[in-house]
């Protein structure tokens, strides 16, 4: 029984880290630019698609992952140029951005559909399996965990130790104040958005071997990511990560004792409960 628990813990963690990366992209854009990117799911999908395409060209998965981040950045750049930056200065711009990012997401999705079709595809990822004390984990899931931790650590370092990171936090806390000290607010915002897109692309690339690629992938994960972002405390990166891991592990654990529909309903009910008990989100717990 403990083996099964440990196994589920690992499975839950691997999925939880995937959620974390996707939620992190959303929360970054919210934290710095105060916008909600309704098209973020499509960036994740493009990351997954990149790995598929790279596989078809014969590139090894490990090479395709950074490529997916690059594609995420490119997609993010298009999003920013057409659907975000031009609206930021407008009085109701941040509301309008809900609509423009949604529309951009649809356009990306439709473009992918018309070029590559709606068919799903397999992503092989890393092969093999690691056995540890009677518990097995596929290399891919292990890689998801390791790569996510590495990415999160890198982001943390970036936010704390680099000039760009501190500037990003400054813009998040006060746009006018940031301008007063000479921070190029617009450029910091754009770079933060691109960073969010890169993280989203990475999330897609890491999850694709587990979930299989499909053009609908983005929409499937986005709802959960939204809930995680809010539960974690809007704009709080630490809260989002903790919350994502929690959701992943709880889902996996509940799955052991409940059937899937019921388990999902339980997870959502738990979320409502958290809203009731900790209205400020989990952010306070993990500053």
């Amino acid at each position, binding site marked *: 029984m403990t083996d099964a628990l440990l196994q589920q813990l690992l499975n839950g963690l691997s999925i939880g880290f995937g959620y974390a990366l996707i939620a992190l992209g959303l929360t970054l854009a919210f934290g710095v630019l105060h916008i909600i990117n309704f098209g973020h799911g499509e960036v994740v999908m493009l990351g997954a698609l990149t790995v598929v395409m790279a596989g078809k060209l014969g590139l090894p998965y490990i090479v395709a992952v950074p490529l997916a981040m690059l594609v995420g950045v490119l997609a993010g750049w298009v999003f920013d140029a057409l659907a975000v930056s031009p609206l930021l200065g407008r009085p*109701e711009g941040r509301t309008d951005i809900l*609509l423009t990012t949604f529309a951009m997401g*649809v*356009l990306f999705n439709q473009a992918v559909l018309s070029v590559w079709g709606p068919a799903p595809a397999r992503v092989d990822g890393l092969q093999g399996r690691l056995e540890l004390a009677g518990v097995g984990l596929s290399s891919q899931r292990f890689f998801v965990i390791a790569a996510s931790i590495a990415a999160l650590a890198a982001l943390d370092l970036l936010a704390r130790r680099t000039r760009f990171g501190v500037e990003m936090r400054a813009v998040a806390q006060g746009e006018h104040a940031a301008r007063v000290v000479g921070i190029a607010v617009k450029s910091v915002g754009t770079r933060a958005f691109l960073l969010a897109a890169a993280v989203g692309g990475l999330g897609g690339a890491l999850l694709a071997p587990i979930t299989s690629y499909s053009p609908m992938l983005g929409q499937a994960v986005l709802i959960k990511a939204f809930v995680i972002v*809010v539960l974690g405390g809007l704009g709080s990166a630490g809260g989002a990560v903790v919350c994502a891991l929690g959701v992943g592990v709880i889902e996996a654990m509940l799955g052991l004792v409940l059937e899937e529909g019921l388990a999902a309903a339980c997870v*959502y009910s738990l979320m409502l409960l958290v809203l009731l008990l900790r*209205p400020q989100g989990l952010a306070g717990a993990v500053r």
Partner: protein
Amino acid sequence: MKATLRDLGIGLVLAASLASVLTSSYLLDVAAYAAVLAIFVLAVSVTFGQLGYVSFGHAAFLGLGAYTVGILVAQAGWSYWAALPLGLLPGLVLGVLIGAVSARLSGAYFAIATLVVAEILVLLVVNWVDLTRGPMGLMVAASPMPLSDLVGWSPQQGYLFAVAAALVLAFVLLRNLRDSATGREWTAIREAPALAESLGIATARSRVLNIAVSGALASFAGALLIPKVFVLSPSLLGVSHSATGILGVILGGKATLVGPMLGGALFAIIPEGLRFMGDLNFAAFALMLLVVVRVLPGGLVGWAATRPAVARRLARRSPGGMGALPAPAPLAARARRDGTLLEVGAVSRQFKGLKAVQEVSFSVRAGEIVGLIGPNGAGKTTLLSMLSGFLPVSAGTIRAVGQDIAGRPAHEVARLGVVRSFQQTALCAGQTVAANMAIASRLHRPADLSGALVRTPAWQARERERMAHALGCLDEVGLLPRLDETAGSLPYGEQKLLGVAMALAAQPEVLLLDEPAAGLNPVEAARLARVLSGLRDKGMTLVVVDHNLKMLMSFVDRVVVLHHGVKIADGAPQEVTRMPEVVEAYLGRAQAERIEAVAA
């Protein structure tokens, strides 16, 4: 009332003629769908546009209404038209529940609460197969609308009339609601929630009401959808309908009611119009949305309202159907009470172990003006927040107007007559000065929801009285000439004065002012001092926090000094400013001499 009936009449005639003119079953179908989505998006705009709460899961209400009525018809054998009015109920109940859970929180939690509820409902519908037929879909046979064959209408024409009539009714009632005290409450909550609470608005309850209204309407839209779709499936509760709700509001323009109606209708009409594009129709629609929002800020109607011609017409219309504004009613003197009006007993407040206020006791007699001073961070604002119900006390008692108010919510404290102003300017920055004052007059006359819905003559008379009182308060601080300006565009000092006027409009017996003179130059501050002494003459009791000692000392009766959360002095201005610890902690030496000169 006349205008309301006239608008309803015109709307019903329009609905009937639309139903009579269209004969193609396809066009009837599209028109009915457009009307249903218009109602749904209108419902979303109640929370989104008026309360400022985005909902990611309004389809929860839509689907719940559809399934409730659908199950009554398909499983319990009700007639569709008999069950239809019940479509309002489930949304109302769910709205109250979601509202109660999330109303105290910021809008983001509301968005997620609706999203999560929608997901749970999907799981419920999918798994409760006996009742809902699960993903296969619940077939619901809707009979033709009663009496529709008498006018020679086909079932589809009768249905279109019913939906269009419902849209007209919803629009007229929501418009009346928006222009009433209730609608103004929502505006205040959206733009300045703390201010709303300080003016006696029960923000939590008002939010719940808003969400319940929106939920009821959305769920009714769901019930209205049944004859159009024949089959209810879990996709009704899905993200695509929720997205239609938000995006329709944005497309139309969330500042208005016409905008969301238009936006909703377009979400039915444009995709149909693009059918010829085959599998590119969705992409074409998205592209149109993107271009429209990029080119027309504020949505279709929001943009149109900024066109000079339209703006001129809109400006001619008076707010709230009130006609011309009434003449200001001078602020009446109130009967003077005797004895102690405010009694603070050993009040303490801690934040995470930090003692912001420690066992402070003092009392204020009726008709007294007390100055509250002390260094920055001494706990003055914390104390004021406790006195006005914005912060609970950690220990101690506060009695005001003969009642124990410690632990009561701020809006109740305000209703008892203890009203505060804010250190930072707090006003509805996007509204005109007049609108701000109308909001502030909340406590002058009770809100009357049913009267407001049909605009009875009695309600209109009360509205005029209310406005006259509000304008009188504005006159008191000398801002009457600024009536039509946007509050946020006033200079800082005038914003603070407007804050004082708004607090006055809430009819306080005890007025708590937090740094009213900050940002005023000496001339402006002197003028404020005259206004405040005038208030005492009209029977008001004041507690004033300010650093402008020259001004403060010119009109206060007594001064209470806080330092590190502890009261270190309490007495007449001349005595207090001479006390060494006050000089040390607060005044600095040279300053003290000058103040004394002024105070003497």
